[in-house]
């Protein structure tokens, strides 16, 4: 048998039909739903007179629109002030009830960001194919699952058939060799990778992240890396299964049990790329050279190390690059050659499907413990990824540390990552954010986002500007 990559193995084991024209019908094991990209899919299915193919393969939770203040959350759906947000959450609720789809509703402690909830519940397992109408579904690839974001038409397709028509992607290997310096995290790896590849560098590929630095990451860290594969253009990111993966899944509510567990585990451990597998593209990185990263522009590829400076026109090669730089500097209110540490910050956001897991909150709390948010910071938010993360953080005393330092401790949801709820930036405000996109207007009309790791955001909250976390005391 010819050697296979991990992606080849996952793809091959899910082919329902291989067609002559290069398209395959592939089977989808798990489907996650949320309120924003599903209403039109449910409606389409209803109009066509269809029903879900396998109801029990779906799991829903509202996340994008939900308010994060305690007062608004107390009354459940009825408490949502924005009537449009409320309607979407209601429609999800009604659709799930009508069709018998399991939903972690707003009052359920298991509610949270879909990509935090899936792994937390053991819904995400190695070897699965998973989809969700959200581009950050790539997150689940950290567990060796083939997980991809899809549009609403495909949400309807998966609901109705449990399958997708797809063309196989090419294989890319991102090899991160060596060890990260203290203070350099999974977020910094992936931001640095995106900076090198560009936001279209991974288009048409499934990226497998490997190498010593990736193997050394926790599963949470690997999720942060795979989460942002889409920011390099790749629909799916993957990390090979190892003992950590198996340990992570073990005992979770939806994980296999008993004899089934043993069978599953044995199979999962085969989910690695063969040593002689051939990738269409291989890119090597040296982890020891990666600094804590900060984005300065309006695309995740516009990123630089903390000791760096905003690029200058002279560094741009093409007129298109010059245009992009000019537009980004104008939008961000920055000047060429400006030091990253001199950017004045207005708000801090710790949260999102990229960095809102318990490990992220522990790391950030460690930085702010006993310190106070700078008076120049208008607001510093911590939004846990799920109700269970929130509960755990409160139990460990992390919430208290944040609140004592001057942060607002919120209820779980997507929150200021995309600002569909009330949590947003004002025009011209700069935010140190642990989220995944710094596009124009992403966190609010005219808002200026700087993507960083949780510890970099925490330190920036205290200092009022970016600091090199490697020399933090």
């Amino acid at each position, binding site marked *: 048998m010819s050697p296979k990559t991990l992606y080849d193995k996952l793809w091959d084991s899910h082919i*329902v039909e291989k*067609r002559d*024209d290069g*398209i395959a*019908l592939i*089977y989808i094991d798990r489907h996650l739903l949320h309120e*924003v*990209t599903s209403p*039109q899919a449910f409606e389409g299915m209803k109009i*066509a007179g*269809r029903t879900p*193919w396998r109801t*029990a393969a779906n*799991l829903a939770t509202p996340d994008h629109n939900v308010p994060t203040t305690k007062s608004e959350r107390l009354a459940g759906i009825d408490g949502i002030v*924005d009537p*449009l947000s409320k*309607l979407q959450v209601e*429609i999800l609720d009604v659709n799930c009830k009508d069709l018998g789809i*399991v939903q*972690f509703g707003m009052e359920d402690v298991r509610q949270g960001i879909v990509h935090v909830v899936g792994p937390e519940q053991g819904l995400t397992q190695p*070897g*699965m194919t998973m989809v969700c*109408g*959200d581009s950050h579904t790539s997150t689940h690839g950290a567990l060796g699952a083939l997980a991809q974001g*899809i*549009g*609403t*038409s*495909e949400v*309807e*397709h998966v609901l*109705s*058939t449990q*399958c997708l*028509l797809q063309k196989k992607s090419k294989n890319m290997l991102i090899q991160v060799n060596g060890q990260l310096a203290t203070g350099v995290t999974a977020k910094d790896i992936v931001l640095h990778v995106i900076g090198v590849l560009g*936001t*279209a560098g991974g*288009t*048409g590929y499934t990226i497998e992240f490997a190498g010593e630095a990736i193997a050394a990451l926790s599963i949470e860290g690997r999720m942060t890396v795979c989460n942002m594969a*889409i*920011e390099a*253009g790749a*629909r799916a990111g993957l990390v090979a299964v190892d003992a950590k993966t198996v340990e992570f899944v073990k005992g979770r509510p*939806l994980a*296999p049990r008993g004899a*089934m567990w043993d*069978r*599953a585990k044995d199979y999962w451990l085969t989910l690695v790329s063969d040593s002689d597998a051939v990738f269409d593209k291989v890119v090597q990185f040296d982890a020891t050279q990666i600094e804590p990263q900060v984005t300065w522009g309006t*695309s995740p590829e516009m990123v630089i190390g903390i000791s760096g400076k905003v690029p200058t026109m002279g560094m741009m090669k093409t007129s*298109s690059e010059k*245009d*992009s730089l000019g537009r980004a500097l104008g939008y961000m209110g920055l000047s060429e050659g400006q030091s990253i540490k001199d950017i004045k910050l207005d708000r801090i956001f710790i949260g999102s499907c990229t960095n809102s897991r318990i490990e992220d909150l522990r790391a950030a709390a460690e930085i702010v413990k006993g310190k106070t948010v700078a008076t120049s910071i208008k607001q510093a938010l911590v939004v846990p990824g799920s109700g269970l993360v929130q509960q755990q953080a409160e139990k460990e005393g992390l919430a208290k540390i944040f609140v004592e330092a001057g942060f607002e401790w919120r209820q779980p949801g997507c929150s200021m990552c*995309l600002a*569909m709820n009330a949590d947003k930036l004002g*025009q011209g405000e700069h935010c140190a954010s642990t989220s995944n*996109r710094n*596009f124009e*207007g*992403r966190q609010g*009309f005219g808002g200026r986002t700087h993507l960083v790791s949780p510890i970099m955001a925490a330190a920036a909250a205290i200092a009022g500007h970016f600091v090199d976390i490697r020399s933090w005391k």
Partner: protein
Amino acid sequence: MQAFTSHHGIVAPFDRANVDTDLIIPKQFLKAVKKTGFGPNLFDQLRYKDEGQLGMDNSKRPVNPDFVLNQKRYTNATILLARENFGCGSSREHAAWALLDYGFRVIVAPSFADIFYNNCFKNGMLPLVLLDMEIDELFQGVESGAVVELTVNLQAQEVRLAKGKNYHFEIDPFRKKCLLLGLDDIGLTLEKQQLIRDYERKQKEICPWLFEDIIV
């Protein structure tokens, strides 16, 4: 789905690389629960000078005269000429719906982001890839006024300029067929019901845990 065979229309040039789906349709409009009605808010942050909200009367909002779609000669454009990596970022199909609702049937660019590219086909729109050199020529032609309209023939995989110049484009044969015939992919997949059942039966023996119901 609406079939797409050929299309003739005015082309509007949007000279900007890496246009993301947040820019195509900002998040506040994703609260709508229908597939239509997004056109008036397409590129909202660029078209208007203020912050748009769902349900606002757009005729009363301050317009940004510099934005290409606000220029009179492009008012009735149905073909959008764009730069590399068009449609990157979020998977929101609302981006394709907004372009379609505005009136665009064809987006011409040197490259597209994967999810957006896929979403276009599901809505009877053609994301058409040309070479960098051809795109540059088109931008020059459109901006100088030498090129106003294009004719796109999907069957022949050809873009024709008024002056008689043609560009050939590549497209996946399956996607081409679905567009030409306006096929419903879900209907097509459901014709394979037996194959799906057979796969499930076989896979259930190999990996039975994958078929445990989500019960909580």
